[in-house]
């Protein structure tokens, strides 16, 4: 299985990277590539890079069977657009993984809508990874925002 791991451009997310690296060690034979953003913890069981250009991001994204990501909108929208199964792990403010807990609310809301699988703990993450082949993607979204939003913006711009 090809797994693409994304932590985003803002800050590292060692808790998630450490967990996936541990799982990768216990489950050899998967092809895992991680974008780790100057992490304090460097993976030993998977390939990684600090940052990635938009081109390479798209390429890795398209090739992957599964996306595992922090609960950032960039990755979630890309997964919905490309109909890729995605597991998100929200960053917690209490572990200094983000300035606030908005990723928890994002993960919960998008989980409720059936758009993502949400893992809040290492154990939940392992659960999803162990059943990776049975994870399905939400139906693909279109290339643009809802017509109501486009119309509202257009009207204001041209008014």
């Amino acid at each position, binding site marked *: 299985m090809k797994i693409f791991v994304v932590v985003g451009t803002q800050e590292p997310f060692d808790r998630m990277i450490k967990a996936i690296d541990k799982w990768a060690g216990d489950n050899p034979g998967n092809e895992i590539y991680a974008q780790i953003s100057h992490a304090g913890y460097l993976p030993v069981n998977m390939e990684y890079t600090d940052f990635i250009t*938009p081109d390479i991001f798209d390429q890795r994204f398209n090739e992957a069977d599964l996306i595992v990501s922090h609960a950032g909108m960039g990755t979630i929208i890309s997964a919905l657009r490309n109909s890729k199964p995605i597991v998100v792990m929200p960053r917690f403010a209490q572990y200094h993984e983000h300035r606030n807990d908005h990723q928890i609310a994002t993960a919960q809301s998008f989980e409720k809508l059936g758009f993502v699988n949400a893992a809040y703990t290492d154990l939940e993450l392992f659960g999803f990874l162990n059943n990776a082949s049975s994870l399905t993607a939400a139906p693909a979204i279109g290339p643009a925002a809802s017509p109501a939003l*486009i119309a509202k*913006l257009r009207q204001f711009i041209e008014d």
Partner: protein
Amino acid sequence: MNVKPKKILAVASGGGHWIQLMRVIPAFEGHEVVFVSTHEGYKKVAGARKFYAVTDANRWNKLRLIKMAFEVRKIVVAEKPDVVISTGAAPGLFALLWARLAGKKTIWLDSIANVEKLSMSGRLIKPFARLHLTQWEHLQGKGTVYSGNVIH
């Protein structure tokens, strides 16, 4: 139908904010768009349209934030846009601020990531946004409008 083409300055920091901005591009059809973001790598995505990269910063690195504020101001002054739109975060906040002070139309589209309350930038910029949008129906009110979202 004959609307005079407007010049739109579309601003977003890298990652999710930028991706959300890309999804409202159809609203700019027939108008001139100039993009501003924090990653030079997006220049390609902007295609034939003009693109500026500014310093990346958030509210925790004050010096970089000040540097960015001045870079954004320079762009707003040089480009003289009719409309400034942003999906967040800090560069958009500054762009709307400078544009509103210059009497331009300003649009804030708060990120869909903000489910429980508007983003910090979104709350700060509200007095300077002539159109202040949330992407969640339950967050509308008090001058903040809901009219759909970027996921469709």
